[in-house]
């Protein structure tokens, strides 16, 4: 075995660093490293350690470089952190830059067949005899490559003192209790652990240890799974979709969980339908048809998908059809960076379609909010009879997060203003002699009543069209009819302002600076505020959770001298929207926007605000 003998240490490690460092695992995609990384995160999570994982993967099936960043933070900061203390090198294509990226004082675990270009003196190297250990394990040939990644789990477990029982439990969970894969993987982990114990001197400072106070009452889950579960518990009945990264796992989770949770107990028949459409145009068309006919209908897509859905979304706005559209954002424009995160679809989603129109947009910040907003989105879509967007992103959707446990939804489903045959028969009596009109606003909120096809009443039918129409849904090109209808739709949007989720505000007395942000930036903002406080800069924080914004946002901006709008896109799209809505106080707003495909870091945000 090619063990590099460590240079003799002048002194023992004087101070151990517990639960507060960054591990970066460099592999090639398609090599099965995801399982190993998940095992590390899950073990650490079960030890009570605040931990977060960010997968930086290529748009590719097999062979291109992938990094998985695991951050441990005893203080509970879960944003992406740029600095790396522990590098695990499994990929020859990037090994030189990976080894160069480690902080001084850090350590490098590496597959001992990889070349070392620069023997840095300021880091410690730990070789791992991956090939020998795999050979000795006598694994089935087709599994060797995958299970080889368990070597770094075992070596890391030894060096960092990760509890082996937790790794074993994590494997059992991952493989659903299936004995064979558990044994094969566990065998590799223990072999590597034993090798490390026998051959390595643990003279590095990084350690983990069990802790309490943070992970209680939480889940470890990705946002797309949470979104799907949210839809299932919000009574979704129809979903149509077309595969696109990073949204695909919403539809797949939906199918997996619905098959278990949404069958009629007697007949075992499905209380839902999921259709993989031929493209995004068809997916949204099906959602429109289903929503129109009374289903709780949704689709999940990403930026290129919403581009294709544009015409139908405009139709849905104008013909007033409920629909829920999940946009798990990736970096655009165009095909862009399909496997990297972004908040670049805000303006597009908010205004999608030609002509005038605005759509409510919900912006979850973590998987728990994905779960909750799945229900809120359906309620709003059916209440407002309009397409509603939920803007998640790749960081929330595909990375696993520590997130608050989901609360069972107590509120009954809001199915909106739908008239049954009986209600239609009584409509005139109950509305001062006014007969029902599909696009007639009798309640003053801009929201008319609708009937569903199949309603057993000879007067229930109406003709849904994308062309100009009167309050009674008849064709019209009259200027007055057109404008009246459009003004009512604008009024309906004002109603939406009162119904969408309010922002979350954390105000600090004496602060003169405000921060406004949204979505997955939340963990980085929390950390940036703490860093700013260390520098003597107190800040207040408002997190926008929906468009249109409500009065709370204006009140917040009015209170502070300067308000930084922090977002993950180039143009400052939230900034642009706020600038229009709050133009009287627009001079206070400062755009802090960045787009490089990575989740924002606290360091960068802090620098922008402190400068």
């Amino acid at each position: 075995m090619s063990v590099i003998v460590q240079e003799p240490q002048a002194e023992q490690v004087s101070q151990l660093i517990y639960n507060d460092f960054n591990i970066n695992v460099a592999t090639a995609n398609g090599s099965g490293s995801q399982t190993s990384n998940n095992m590390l995160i899950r073990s650490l999570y079960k030890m009570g350690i605040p931990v977060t994982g960010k997968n930086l993967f290529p748009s590719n099936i097999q062979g291109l470089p992938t990094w998985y960043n695991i951050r441990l933070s005893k203080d509970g900061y879960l944003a992406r952190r740029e600095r790396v203390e522990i590098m695990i090198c499994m990929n020859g294509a990037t090994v030189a830059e990976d080894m160069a990226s480690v902080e001084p004082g850090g350590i490098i675990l590496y597959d001992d067949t990889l070349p070392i270009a620069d023997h840095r003196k300021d880091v410690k190297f730990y070789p791992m005899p991956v090939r020998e250990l795999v050979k000795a394990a006598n694994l089935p040939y087709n599994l060797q490559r995958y299970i080889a990644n368990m070597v770094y789990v075992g070596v890391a477990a030894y060096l960092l003192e990760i509890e082996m029982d937790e790794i074993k439990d994590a494997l059992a969970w991952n493989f659903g209790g299936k004995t064979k894969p558990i044994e094969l993987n566990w065998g590799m982990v223990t072999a590597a652990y034993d090798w490390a114990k026998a051959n390595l001197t643990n003279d590095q400072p990084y350690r983990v240890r069990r802790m309490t106070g943070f992970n209680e009452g939480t889940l470890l889950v990705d946002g797309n799974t949470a979104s799907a579960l949210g839809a299932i518990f919000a009574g979704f009945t129809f979903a149509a979709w077309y595969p696109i990264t990073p949204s695909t796992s919403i539809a797949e989770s939906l199918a997996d969980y619905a098959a278990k949770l949404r069958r009629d107990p007697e007949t075992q028949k499905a209380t839902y339908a999921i259709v993989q459409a031929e493209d995004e145009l068809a997916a949204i068309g099906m959602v429109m048809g289903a929503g129109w006919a009374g289903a709780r209908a949704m689709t999940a897509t990403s930026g290129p998908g919403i581009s294709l859905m544009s015409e139908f979304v405009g139709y849905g706005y104008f013909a007033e059809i409920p629909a829920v559209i999940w946009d798990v954002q990736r970096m655009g424009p165009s095909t862009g960076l399909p496997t990297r995160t972004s908040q670049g679809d805000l303006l597009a989603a908010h205004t999608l379609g030609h002509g005038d129109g605005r759509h409510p947009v919900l912006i979850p910040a973590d998987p728990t909010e994905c779960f909750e907003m799945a229900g809120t989105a359906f309620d709003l879509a059916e209440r407002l009879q309009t397409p509603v967007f939920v803007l998640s992103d790749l960081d929330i959707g595909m990375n696993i997060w520590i997130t608050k446990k989901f609360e069972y939804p107590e509120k009954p489903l809001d199915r909106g203003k739908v008239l049954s045959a009986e209600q239609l028969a009584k409509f005139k009596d109950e509305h001062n002699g006014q007969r029902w009109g599909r696009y007639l606003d009798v309640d003053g909120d801009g929201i008319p009543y609708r009937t569903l096809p199949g309603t057993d009443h000879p007067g229930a039918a109406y003709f849904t069209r994308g062309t100009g129409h009167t309050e009674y849904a008849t064709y019209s090109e009259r200027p007055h009819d057109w404008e009246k209808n459009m003004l009512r739709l604008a009024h309906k949007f004002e109603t939406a302002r009162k119904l969408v989720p309010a922002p979350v505000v954390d105000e600090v007395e004496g602060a003169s600076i405000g921060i406004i942000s949204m979505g997955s930036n939340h963990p980085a903002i929390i950390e940036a505020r703490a860093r700013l406080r260390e520098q003597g800069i107190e800040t207040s924080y408002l997190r926008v959770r929906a468009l249109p914004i409500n009065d709370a946002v204006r009140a917040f901006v009015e209170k502070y001298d300067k308000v930084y709008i922090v977002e993950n896109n180039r143009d400052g799209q939230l900034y642009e929207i706020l600038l229009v809505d709050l133009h009287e106080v627009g001079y206070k707003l400062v755009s802090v926007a960045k787009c490089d495909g990575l989740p924002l870091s606290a360091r960068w945000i802090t620098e922008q605000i402190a400068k």
Partner: protein
Amino acid sequence: MTATPTRTPAPRAPKLNLIGLEKNAYKGADSTLCNGCGHDSISSRIINAAWEMGLKQEKVVKFSGIGCSSKTPAYFLGMSHGFNSLHGRMPSVATGALVANRTLIGIGVSGDGDTASIGIGQFKHLVRRNVPMVYIVENNGVYGLTKGQFSATADQGQKLKYAGTNPYMPLDVCLEALAANATFVARSFAGDAKQLEALLKAAIAHKGLAVLDVISPCVTFNNHDESTKSYAFGKENETPLHDLSFVPSFEQIEIDEYDDETEVQLHDGSWLVLKKLDEHYDPTDKHLAYRTLEDARKQQKLLTGIFYIEPETPNFLDILQMTETPLAHLPEAQTRPGRAALEKLMAEL
């Protein structure tokens, strides 16, 4: 050979149908199409067929895309909900609506531009999924609403006033449907009231997707005698494959054996009776359907009738294995799992 089978009783039309409605009750708004438009004849046939079959309009949904043809659902079955969707996108809308409420009867009206040009993709996937509905293509080979451009079904060499001469081979809607595994493929001519009505009834009774390509002359932009989509051409060149009769399930008629007839029983118990004009024609033989359509195309013959029918293939709703109660009407108790289910799955995460 051309005698109509006499087993379908044709009593004087009663004033009221099975569910006690006059035919007028099946009308819609007044048509705004050009006088003499083939599409209006088709609307009349739909009204007749629906009335004679005693369809409850509240159970019918009408779908269309964009174009002259797609306006027509406003002109028939005024007590049915209608969805005039986007250009070429009616199939997806219909798919969603019919899945949301499986008790609805879907009738879609499209045109050749809407189906064979902008909508060919959605059309073929609708066919492939065998969504249970009637899909009518009112085919005139021309874009009417934008005043006379060629569609994808226009004949090669055809001349139009503004568009000039069409250099491309046409798409054949029936061949496209067959290639996408359609379970009901038929063609008719807007001027052939009797055959069209029989086909419409059979299409409504079919349990899967029924494609009805109806040659419907455009009196304004494409009614030159040499066009295969003109009245003159249709009248002169229409060659029915068979005489058709449709026997609804509620008419308990004995089916006698006739040597020169084929009967196809549809899933609701009704019968489609085809009296063969061509003694070799078997509408359950897909190869024959391909060959017949291809031959007719080569010979520039307007061949009408049922080219292919397969009544037993599971439709889209069968495949989805949904509850009997339409998705749209499931109560919250059935669509929101209980608290224990959430606790259990969170424990498993």
